[in-house]
């Protein structure tokens, strides 16, 4: 598959995302600068983490008006796969591609740690390779990851199976202490109604190699790749079964 990884001023997880897609999975990934107006031949778009535009005004508020986001809107409207990670999730919410908003962590603390998330809906291009009941141990690093939506939106998210991941403890229980940011109903990630756009606060790209302490994030990328395969998109250029050693 061909991935487009967006770069805004102060994106800082773009390199990690491209590294994982190219070197861990052997697929093609290219950076797309925010001033570009085309996504080229991308099969999927990753909006990476960071602090686009210094988080000025609100997280993601300025990035969502970048020229490339018009292309992302069209891409998503045509069914293209879009995954927003951390700041990417915030940008997708600001852009209206995902419902709700991400606000200051309830604790007011920047939280940087590994958390557990449970996958709620396996029927999505982002979760279809995650075994039932498998908890993912993935890192978070954010100050504004508290998911908020009004009651009606929240009810619709639940009714339509749009909540993909929730924060849980190591036994898979949804508790207050396992919710690192005060998100409503422990929501860690959601998708749109059409299920082709998703966002999550944790960083799966930082959990794809054993040296980083967890490889659970791979399952999310493997889901995307398996979806791309079903859609008849390009095969990996190089298949690397083994995780490359750290250099």
């Amino acid at each position, binding site marked *: 598959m061909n991935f487009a990884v967006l770069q805004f001023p102060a994106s800082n997880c773009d390199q990690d995302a491209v590294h994982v897609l190219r070197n861990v999975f052997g697929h093609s990934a290219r950076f797309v600068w925010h001033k570009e107006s085309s996504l080229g031949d991308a099969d999927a778009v990753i909006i990476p983490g960071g602090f686009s535009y210094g988080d000025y005004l609100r997280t993601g508020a300025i990035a969502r008006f970048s020229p490339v986001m018009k292309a992302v809107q069209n891409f998503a409207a045509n069914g293209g796969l879009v995954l927003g990670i951390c700041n990417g999730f915030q940008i997708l919410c600001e852009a209206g591609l995902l419902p*709700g908003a991400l*606000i200051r962590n*309830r604790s007011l603390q920047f939280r940087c740690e590994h958390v557990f998330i449970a996958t709620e809906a396996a029927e999505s291009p982002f979760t279809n390779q995650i075994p039932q009941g498998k908890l993912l141990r993935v890192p978070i690093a954010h100050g504004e990851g508290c998911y908020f939506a009004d009651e009606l939106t929240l009810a619709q998210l639940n009714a339509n199976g749009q909540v993909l991941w929730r924060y849980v403890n190591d036994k898979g229980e949804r508790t207050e202490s396992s919710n690192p940011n005060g998100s409503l109903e422990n929501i860690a990630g959601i998708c749109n109604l059409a299920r082709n756009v998703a966002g999550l606060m944790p960083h799966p790209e930082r959990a794809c190699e054993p040296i980083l302490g967890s490889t659970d994030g791979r399952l999310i990328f493997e889901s995307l790749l398996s979806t791309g395969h079903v859609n008849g998109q390009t095969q990996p250029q190089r298949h690397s079964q083994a995780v490359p050693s750290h250099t």
Partner: protein
Amino acid sequence: MKAKIIITPKKAVLDPQGKTVQSALAHMGYTEVGDVHVGKYIEIELTGADKSNAQKQINDACHKFLSNPVIEDYRFEIE
């Protein structure tokens, strides 16, 4: 002309900053302090002369960009 815009968190939205400031005020001995909401204040210098047009434009900018209607309310004055 100048637009003076005030943006506040919606009542239904958690406002941890407001809560923290409220409890700090209470600790400092300000006993008659109720709910606190922390928002934003934005001033914009306007170069046009038509006040009703400015009003329209600022309202549009507040709705689309300066505030997020999911979590915030806004009000403004043009002077």
